């Protein structure tokens, strides 16, 4: 059957089997490669996207189960139109290899949506599912605090 899912406000259609994870629909079928494959078992957070604003691991959501509107890093902001959070990430020079950063940013976006002024403990709690092998955590933390400040203004 054909599935229609909304990604970043645009309807996409696919006839892939129902059990294909959203991650691989986004990447291989829709060409939205900002969302990354890291582990396939919800252990690293590289594939984090939002469904109706909720941060989910897209490697664990089957195509047939997508329950709402999907948004990905590409929908958060574009190079010529950055979101406040991405601007904070840029200004804090967070990324090293950068492979995990889409997932980190999508996770942080959900945190800030629910907790506009997160404490360090809030950041620890929200971000601990997102692995970074380059060890960019100190700058991720700084960027989240920075974005929270900017969003207040």
């Amino acid at each position, binding site marked *: 059957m054909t599935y229609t899912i909304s990604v970043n406000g645009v309807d996409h259609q696919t006839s892939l089997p129902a059990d*294909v994870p959203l991650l691989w629909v986004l990447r291989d079928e829709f060409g939205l490669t900002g969302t990354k*494959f890291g582990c396939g078992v919800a252990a690293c957070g590289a594939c984090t996207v939002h469904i109706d604003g909720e941060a989910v691991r897209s490697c664990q959501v089957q195509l047939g189960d997508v329950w709402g509107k999907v948004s990905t890093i590409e929908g958060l902001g574009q190079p010529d139109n950055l979101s406040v959070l991405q601007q904070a990430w840029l200004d804090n020079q967070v990324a090293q*290899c*950068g492979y995990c950063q889409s997932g980190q*940013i999508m996770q942080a976006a959900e945190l800030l949506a629910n907790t506009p002024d997160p404490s360090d403990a809030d950041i620890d709690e929200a971000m601990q599912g997102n*692995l970074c092998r*380059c060890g960019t955590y100190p700058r991720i933390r700084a960027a989240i605090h920075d974005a929270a400040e900017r969003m207040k203004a």
Partner: protein
Amino acid sequence: MSKLKKIARRTFLVGSAAIVGGVAFGVYKYRQDPENPLLSDASSHVLNPFVFVNEDGITLIAPKSEMGQGVHTTWAAMIAEELDVELDQVNVLHGPPAAAYFNSALIGLALPFLDYKVTGFQENLRGYVGEAGKLIGIQVTGGSTSMKDGFERMRQVGASTREVFKQAAADRWGLNAADLTTKAGLVTAPDGREAKYTELAEEAAKLEPREVELRIATEWRLLGKSQPRIDMLAKVTGTAEFGADIHVPGMKFATVRMNPKRSGMVRFDASAAENMAGVERIVDLGDGVAVIAGNTWLAMQAADAIDVTWEAANYPETTDGFFAALEDGFANEANATPRDEGDVEQVFEGTRITADYKLPFLAHSTMEPMNATALYTQSAMTIWVGSQAPLMARDAAADAVGLPKESVDLFVPYLGGGFGRRSDTDFSTVAARVAKAMPGVAIKTMWSREEDMRHDSYRPAALARFRGVIKDGQAVMLDGQVVSKSLLDFGGADRENVSGSFDQPYGIPNYRIRGYLADLGVPTGYWRSVGSSINGFVFDSFMDEMAHAAGRDPLEFRLELLRREHEPSAKVLEAIKETSGWTGSTPDGVGRGVAFTYSFGTPVAEAIEVQDTDDGIKITKCWIAADPGIALDPSIVQAQLFGGATYGLSAAVMGEITFADGEVEQFNFPDYDALRMHTTPTFDVHILQNNRFIGGIGEPGTPPAAPALANALFDLTGIRARELPLNKTFDFIL
């Protein structure tokens, strides 16, 4: 050269206008430089392989793999500094694999003298040996060598190119080039006339570049100051293209099953997989099976459904078996004794101490699993691969499919972590062989995390035996033996196996280090900081034991020995004393440890604080002080130092690859995890610039992390852990 011309044209979108540059000289001593990969035929004018100007703009070539270390930014800044262009004015591209992009510094690292004692003569020798790198044509990003490699050459490229633009303008205006000024890609005359570099390109191409005196550091605009990374915008918007993201119209997606016992394949039965959704082709690789499908996940599902009988392992079946082989290695003659000062065999008075250390195999565990995309036709192949060694990858991929290497084009996108793993060629050759099964179709072969973790080239396990003598609070003798698999594996004495032990700038009068080799059979490779990842832990742990045996403060004990030998090293430890407020004592429930390792030309000291909590031990704080000679980009240097330390701490706390039945027992991150947001300490990074020569920065932050943590845990608990990972001995908050 027609193929390279093609690459250049495709990669750089060369228009009809002339292409111009200066000539890369300065360190080039051989009359005949390697062929310029951007040079194609008599009708174009590329004079050097690093600067590329046409009417559309200025492109700088940074032929170093960008794996997070910021090399593209600083490499471009080295050229831009002298060229007088701004970083936001230029495009920066990796460029094609080519011998012209040889790594002069990496070859020099294999020389057998003490790095920290390098003299002008030896530095020249290093440059000379670096010429061998040009002949061999290695283009490798590794060994923390990029800045050493590029620092003189790239500034000279920028300066000589700038001067030909000035000369071209001078000729045009009938003025003296010396009276002209340059800024932001513009030549300006005293009377206010201006010409853009891009407009001058064709005329400048006809001029002979000359060697130019380089600007002194106090005149720098870009170097020595933190620059916005040129890859940052792409990396915060998901638009950075990694190997995993390569898209070619009509492409297919594949995955591979390889022998977890790392040998051949007896048979396989793919009947269950053949009819699964999306499957297009089952590929018998001889030593493994690949599935090509319309979607990566469907390929992975089908690959899992293949029933394979693997050949047995050609190495010990269990972890204990490997350690027994290592123990046996001590019975061999020493392979390398690169330091033997004084006489460690004499009879000493004083307190004798001994310690044995045990370190596990480690996986690299990059965030981006191994992958490559290849498009094979009968006569040619194009391969896109995040490789740290693109020339070797190209040649290996060509061999794998039976094409001459000239018929293979290779592109290097961003690397989702390297850490040494991506200097191997296996993921390139696998992708090439898979692509050969479907000529004319681009195929991305993506390894599952499980394949990646179980088919790594591991940091080898190691054992060490150290003994020492303390008299009157002083270290009078240190004698260390380290056994592991050969790390460089070039044959002969492998000093890399004892790097981090033999080359430490401590003035111990009787000081010997011997390396022993054991052939462990299983694939091993370079793991961030290589030999120093092993020796940094055992050597500095032993220094800590010596300090405690001497009844001395561990920081002061090290400091006194460093001052005798190498002032810049002493100064990084003094900096740690200052920044951490080191007093030698801590409140109850808090422990502190310090460690020092000189590696890749850069002395690094780290102090770590740990805290006992109801939920376990928490690593709270890490202070780092390092001296890379010149910090070309302080923000990037800082990131490499705390990133390198975090990589070392992850391994120290929980990194361990084990074997059972000849197979690695770790499959995915839940079995082989790393520090995360809540378990990573806060960092205080201090950069010094007293060292005479420019040092590496991507790796030196890693070696002192494990001993600093173990030393802190000793301070906290009184328990001395001589085996890694430390979660075997301590309960951490995880």
